[in-house]
C-alpha cells in the first residue's frame, strides 16, 4: 500500500529500485552510497525481491557485471560514488555505446586528492561525456521518483541509453525525510517489463562489443548523440506521465524555473543546494528583490532550448559549480555559457561547495550581491 515513511535518502533509493524489479545487482560498497547495497541485500535476503546480488571485488567489476547482465537481456542496477565511479570510467562508454539502458545511482562525493568523503559533483561531472544521461535530485522524494522515471527513460526504444541518477552524498543519502512510497501495482503499470533489443542467446548467436573500423565508428557515436537529443523529448514525456500516475513533477523533468517571471538576476543550481537557494530567494523576494532560481536536473542531455527560454529576460545568471575543471573554471559554468552563447544574459560562475564545504544562505546571498553589482564570479569559499 502507498504510504509515507520517514527514511534516509539511500533507503528511499533502495526501495525505489526494489519496486523496479531488477534481476541482477552487482554491488561494491563505497561511502556515501553504501546504504543502498546494504538495504538491497536485506531485500534479497528476506526474499522481498527476486534478484541475484553479486558481491564483486571492485567497482570496475560492478559495472562490468552490470554490462554482462544487460547483455543477457535483463534489467539491472548498481550504485557507487567518487573513486568508485572513477574506477568504472573505462566501462561507462562501453555500456552506453552498447546501448544498454542501465540505471546507476551515484551518491555524489568529491574525488580524492586530498581524500574527502564529503559531497561535491566532481565524480559525476567528470563522467558527463560518456554517453550516460545524468539526472540530479534536490530531495529524497525526487531521488525515489527519479529512479523509477530513469528506467522508463533509459528503456524507451527511442533512447536506449544508460542513466545515472545523482543525489548529493550525505546531504540527501543520509538525511531522513518523509518519502511517499508508491504501490507495486502502480509502479508496474508505469514501468512495463523490459524487452531487450538484443541479448545473448545460444540459439541465435550474436556478437557484442564488436570492433568498429574508421568507416563506421563515427556513425555509431552519432547514433548515440541522436539518442541523447531524443532523450530530451522522452524525459519531458516520462515526467508528464509520472505526474499523471503519481502526482509529482520536477519542472519539465529536465529543468525548472522558479520566480523567473519578473527576475533580472537568477541563480542556477544543481541538486540539494537548490533547497537553500529557494529559501534565500523567498526572503529576498519578500524584500522586493526580484531574484529567480533555475534548478537544472538534467546535465546530460543539457536542455539548451529550455535554458534559453528561461533566461530570456535575465541580465545576469550566477551558476553554482560543485566541480572545477582545473585550468578553466567551473565545468558546469562553461557548459551553461556555451548553451547561452548569443543570448543577452551574462553568465558568471561560482565554484563552491567542493569537498563538502557548506553552501549556506550567507554564501548564496553573497553570490547574489556579486551578480547584482555586475561583478565577476569567483571561488565562493
Amino acid at each position, binding site marked *: 500500500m502507498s504510504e509515507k515513511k520517514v527514511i534516509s535518502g539511500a533507503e528511499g533509493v533502495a526501495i525505489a529500485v526494489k519496486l523496479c524489479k531488477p534481476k541482477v545487482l552487482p554491488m561494491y560498497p563505497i561511502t556515501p552510497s553504501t546504504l543502498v547495497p546494504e538495504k538491497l541485500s536485506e531485500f534479497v535476503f528476506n526474499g522481498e525481491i527476486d534478484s541475484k546480488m553479486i558481491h564483486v571485488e571492485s567497482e570496475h567489476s560492478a559495472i562490468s557485471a552490470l554490462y554482462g547482465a544487460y547483455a543477457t537481456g535483463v534489467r539491472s542496477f548498481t550504485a557507487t560514488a567518487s573513486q568508485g565511479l572513477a574506477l568504472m570510467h573505462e566501462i561507462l562508454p562501453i555500456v552506453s*555505446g*552498447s*546501448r*544498454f539502458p542501465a540505471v546507476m545511482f551515484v551518491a555524489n562525493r568529491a574525488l580524492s586528492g586530498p581524500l574527502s568523503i564529503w559531497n561535491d559533483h566532481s565524480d559525476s561531472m567528470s563522467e558527463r561525456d560518456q554517453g550516460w544521461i545524468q539526472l540530479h535530485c534536490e530531495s529524497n522524494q525526487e531521488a525515489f521518483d527519479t529512479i523509477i522515471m530513469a528506467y522508463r527513460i533509459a528503456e524507451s526504444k527511442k533512447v*536506449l541509453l544508460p542513466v545515472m541518477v545523482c543525489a548529493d552524498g550525505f546531504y540527501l543519502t543520509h538525511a531522513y525525510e518523509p518519502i511517499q512510497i508508491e504501490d507495486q501495482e502502480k509502479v508496474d503499470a508505469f514501468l512495463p517489463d523490459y524487452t531487450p*533489443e*538484443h541479448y545473448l542467446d545460444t540459439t541465435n*548467436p*550474436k*556478437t*557484442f562489443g*564488436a570492433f*568498429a*573500423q*574508421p*568507416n*563506421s565508428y563515427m*556513425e*555509431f557515436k552519432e*547514433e548515440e548523440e541522436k539518442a541523447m537529443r531524443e532523450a530530451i523529448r522522452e524525459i519531458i514525456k516520462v515526467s508528464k506521465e509520472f505526474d499523471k500516475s503519481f502526482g509529482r513533477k520536477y519542472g519539465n523533468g529536465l529543468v525548472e524555473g522558479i520566480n523567473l517571471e519578473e527576475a533580472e538576476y537568477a541563480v542556477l543550481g544543481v541538486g540539494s543546494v537548490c533547497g537553500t537557494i529557494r529559501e534565500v530567494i523567498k526572503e529576498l523576494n519578500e524584500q522586493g528583490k526580484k531574484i529567480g532560481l533555475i534548478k537544472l536536473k538534467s546535465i546530460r542531455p543539457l536542455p539548451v532550448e529550455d535554458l534559453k527560454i528561461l533566461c530570456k529576460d535575465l541580465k545576469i545568471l550566477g551558476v553554482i559549480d560543485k566541480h572545477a575543471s582545473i585550468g578553466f573554471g567551473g565545468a558546469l559554468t562553461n557548459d551553461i555559457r556555451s548553451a547561452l552563447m548569443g543570448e543577452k544574459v551574462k553568465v558568471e560562475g561560482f565554484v563552491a561547495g567542493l569537498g563538502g564545504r557548506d553552501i549556506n544562505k550567507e554564501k548564496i546571498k553573497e553570490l547574489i550581491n556579486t551578480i547584482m553589482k555586475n561583478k565577476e564570479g569567483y571561488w565562493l569559499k
Partner: protein
Amino acid sequence: MKVKEKEKKENIPLTCGAVITQPGSTKKYKTGEWRTFIPIIDQEKCIKCGKCWMNCPDGAIFKTPEGKFMINYAYCKGCLICEKVCPVKAISHKVEEK
C-alpha cells in the same frame, strides 16, 4: 588502403549498440594483408601432428580431406607462431613481397 576505400562504399548496418546479428562475420575481414613474413609449410618434412593448426591464433591453418595441413593466406597475419611450435621444423618463412 584499397580495402578501406572499398569498405567505405559498402553500406554498414547501424545495429543498435553495434551488435553483429549474424555469426561468422570475421570471415569477411581478410587480415592477410597485415603480413610482413610469410610462413611456408614443407609438406615433405611435415609429420601431420597438427600443432601449427592448434596454435595458429587466427585459425588460418586448415586440414585438407587428405590430412594435409595448409595455410589460408587470405587470413594468415604472419606471426610465425606455427613456425615456432612445429616439432620437426617443417615451417620456414620469407619476407612477404608486396
